[in-house]
């Protein structure tokens, strides 16, 4: 693919990151817009996002993306001016265009030539604009050229004037915080220049290459977005002299006036001042619209570098907060987390050493000093661990934000009318969990719309509001995060679940009759049970609730369901805040220590050998009214068991999905928090083990993979 001259791979990376954000923002906002949350600010935000995307794709030289965003921008422009109105058709086309943008973006990321047919989509947009024209205004709308026009200005103008006022106020405080050798630069651009923003961009680009831009008016954001008037002011921290900078900047064409002076010099000559600052808001007129016709942005944009973008994360929402955030590569955080985990291990080790030394040198000064230091190291380590855990936390909005669009598309597809209400999207959890939780939630939401919410007529007949309500809620509860998916649909038919479970041989007819409704409804998580409706395309891909449960349990979480016939269904998912550290029951088998995640441990039993009976080649134990398959870990791991002296067996009862299994171990070694580590590349996956952890004394403990052990028993059982 051909890019503008001087575009580096880093530029593309920066572009992609920004495109990710803008596209997501557009998607969020479009769905909001359709849900009649129309407001001037929203429309303005949408327009700006499209405009920014257009500008950056043109700068990059991505013709197709620029063309498409240009067409979208046009539609948004007409929307905000009220020339056209929000219709389902228009939204469909725009969302499709957004998908196409996203596809092109991913193709760019993958480094392949994109196959997206932009012309077709652009034609669709044009057509949709024509059809969505506000009746009275139809003529104006259809004849509007593909440009931001006069009518759009008033809104922009106000916004810009406010921004300008804020900027000049801010300028003073920026100035006072700068060192005396910082340079103040003022540039006037020729009024005849067709692309003032490109020139302004060249100037800041140049400045960024020789120093650091402390502040500029217009802001870097605005310059990039093309919101540039015919003047530019900037403060730069650089080791070049004022005259050197002036000389460099002079080389950029279309600049009528360039003035550079150090702050100290200006201060000295403070009486006869500059006739700046420019009145950014007053005369932007024709300058305001985007300068970039597709591809014309030759802009020497080789250094649309990270620093600009890093600062442009929070566009226009308060300049004061600009530099308080930093982007950090995830792998760095992972490394940091590993290092802290090492400290945690050392801390435990240190505590042991201290104890030993104390017993030897009791009461001596040096021993007490060591004790104090060790305590302090321990405290600092804990805090460090907490803080790093917090850094790794992301708001669950990262998962939730794609759902409004999904629900919208799905309800349209299925002829449902559904409102999705999201609560607690700011709730934070570790990014490792965020990465894993998306799919199970998608499944639950699809179920809610597909099976929960009734078609509108049916709802009206049942005396319910026409529009169904799906609620997605997240909150913290102790050390877990709780996510609820609730719908006000028809609920789960518990008797039907019973019948089916009996049909499929999951439980006996007796048991089905005996268990409570609450227990019965939880049978939907049993493997092999899918009610008739669940086989359709909505629940999709043949994935049943059993998979949802398995996936959640793999994260050491749990899921439960409550339902009321005719009223609705609520799924409650509980997850740990992080996957990196879990609480585990340590056990000893054949002299080695193993860790069993506490989330799967039900109870520990001590029973005589004689109570174990062999059924179909499988050792079992009658626990309550349940037949518990017994797994001797010593056999699984091929080690010698050293049984307890009283001849009783120590059984740790664990659960995965709905099945319980008893693990026979030699000794219980207490519970503790453990840091999960991979077994390492050479070993790969090993059945029965999910990882390893380092204990306080430096020894390793293998972590037992409960789900796989439980599965190994159940498959054996069914195979017979």
């Amino acid at each position, binding site marked *: 693919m051909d890019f503008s001259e001087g575009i580096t791979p880093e530029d593309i990376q920066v572009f992609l990151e920004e495109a990710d954000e803008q596209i997501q923002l557009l998607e969020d906002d479009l769905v909001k817009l359709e849900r009649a949350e129309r407001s001037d600010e929203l429309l303005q935000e949408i327009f700006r996002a499209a405009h920014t995307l257009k500008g950056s794709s043109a700068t990059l030289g991505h013709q197709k993306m620029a063309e498409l965003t240009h067409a979208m921008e046009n539609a948004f422009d007409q929307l905000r001016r009220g020339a056209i109105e929000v219709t389902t058709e228009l939204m469909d086309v725009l969302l499709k265009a957004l998908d196409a943008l996203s596809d092109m973006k991913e193709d760019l990321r993958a480094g392949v030539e994109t196959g997206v047919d932009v012309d077709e989509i652009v034609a669709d947009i044009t057509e949709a604009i024509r059809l969505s024209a506000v009746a009275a205004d139809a003529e104006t709308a259809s004849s509007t050229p593909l440009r931001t026009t006069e009518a759009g200005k008033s809104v922009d103008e106000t916004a810009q004037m406010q921004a300008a006022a804020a900027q000049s106020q801010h300028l003073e405080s920026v100035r006072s915080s700068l060192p005396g050798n910082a340079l103040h630069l003022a540039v006037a651009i020729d009024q005849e220049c067709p692309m003032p923003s490109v020139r302004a961009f060249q100037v800041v680009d140049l400045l960024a290459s020789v120093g650091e831009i402390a502040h500029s008016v217009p802001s870097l954001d605005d310059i990039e977005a093309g919101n540039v008037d015919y003047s530019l002011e900037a403060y730069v921290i650089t080791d070049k002299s004022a005259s050197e900078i002036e000389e460099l900047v002079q080389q950029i064409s279309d600049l009528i006036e360039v003035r550079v002076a150090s702050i100290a010099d200006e201060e000295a000559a403070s009486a006869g001042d500059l006739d700046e600052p420019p009145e950014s808001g007053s005369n932007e007129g024709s300058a305001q619209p985007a300068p970039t016709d597709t591809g014309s942005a030759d802009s020497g944009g080789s250094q649309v570098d990270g620093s600009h973008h890093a600062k442009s994360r929070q566009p226009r929402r308060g300049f004061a907060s600009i530099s308080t955030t930093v982007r950090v590569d995830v792998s760095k955080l992972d490394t940091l987390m*590993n*290092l802290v*985990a*090492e400290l945690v*291990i*050392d801390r435990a080790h240190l505590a042991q050493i201290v104890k030993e030394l104390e017993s030897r040198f009791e009461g001596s000064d040096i021993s007490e000093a060591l004790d104090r230091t060790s305590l302090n190291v321990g405290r600092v380590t804990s805090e460090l661990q907490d803080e790093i855990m917090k850094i790794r936390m992301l708001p669950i909005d990262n998962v939730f934000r794609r759902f409004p669009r999904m629900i919208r598309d799905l309800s349209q597809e299925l002829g449902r009318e559904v409102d999705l209400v999201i609560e607690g999207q700011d709730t934070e959890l570790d990014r490792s969990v965020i990465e894993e939780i998306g799919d199970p939630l998608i499944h639950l939401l699809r179920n809610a719309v597909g099976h929960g919410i009734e078609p509108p007529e049916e709802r009206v007949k049942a005396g319910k509001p026409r529009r169904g309500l799906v609620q997605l809620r997240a909150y913290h509860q102790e050390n877990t995060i709780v996510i609820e998916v609730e719908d006000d649909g028809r609920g789960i038919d518990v008797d039907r679940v019973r019948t089916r479970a009996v049909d499929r041989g999951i439980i006996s007819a007796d048991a089905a009759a005996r268990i409570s409704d609450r227990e019965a409804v939880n049978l939907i998580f049993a493997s092999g049970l899918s009610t008739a409706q669940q086989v359709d395309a909505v629940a999709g891909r043949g994935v049943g609730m059993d998979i949802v449960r398995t996936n959640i349990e793999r994260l050491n979480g749990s899921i439960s369901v409550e339902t009321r016939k005719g009223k609705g269904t609520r799924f409650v998912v509980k997850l740990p805040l992080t996957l990196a550290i879990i609480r585990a029951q340590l056990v000893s088998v054949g002299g*080695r220590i193993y860790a069993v995640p506490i989330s799967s441990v039900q109870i520990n039993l001590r029973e005589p050998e004689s109570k174990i009976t062999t059924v179909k080649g499988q050792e079992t134990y009658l626990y309550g009214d349940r037949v518990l398959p017994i797994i001797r870990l010593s056999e*699984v*791991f*091929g*080690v010698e068991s050293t049984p307890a002296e009283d001849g009783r067996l120590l059984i740790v009862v664990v659960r995965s999905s709905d099945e319980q299994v008893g693990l026979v171990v030699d000794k219980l070694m207490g519970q503790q928090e453990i840091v999960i*580590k*991979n*077994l*390492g*590349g*050479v*070993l*790969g*996956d*090993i*059945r*029965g*083990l999910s990882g*390893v952890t*380092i204990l306080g004394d*430096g*020894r*390793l403990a*293998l972590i037992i993979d409960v789900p796989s052990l439980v599965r*190994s028993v159940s*498959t054996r059982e069914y*195979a017979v």
Partner: protein
Amino acid sequence: MPGNQEAKQMHEYVIFELAGEHYAVDVSPVEEILRMAEITEVPHAPSFVEGIMNFRGNVMPVIDLRRRLGLPTSEHTKNTRIMAVSLNSGTVGMIVDAVSEVAEIPPEIVEPPSPIILDVDTDFLTGIAKMGSDDQEGKLVVILDLVKVLSDKSQRELAEFSEAMAADDV
């Protein structure tokens, strides 16, 4: 500090012993040479994997290089060492009988491997060097390609291993 450019250009090698023979590996990926330490056995791991150990707070798999190269196994002695080697897949420990020195092996004295004189699989070898000064008896040093030692065949065995596991499940 091993691992830098300079060392590589110097053609420096770690020379160690296995079953009475001298072997050498490029010094640059060798992070540390450790005394024998507690190794935790991993059930169901491939046979050449001795286990895992705690190396600088990380979990490092340890392989028995004798077994890996198809040599007869032996008891560990006080000379037994673990070479921690950093490869693409992470750091791996390799048990060797003893580590004698770090020495330069100029490329001129390295000859292509000849399968006749060797017990080990020639796939793993880069060449053979005849070392030693005039007053000393020359010794033959087998130069190993660590990446190969840990890739091709290991991968195959690991694959077979997982298949066996899968079959076991049925």
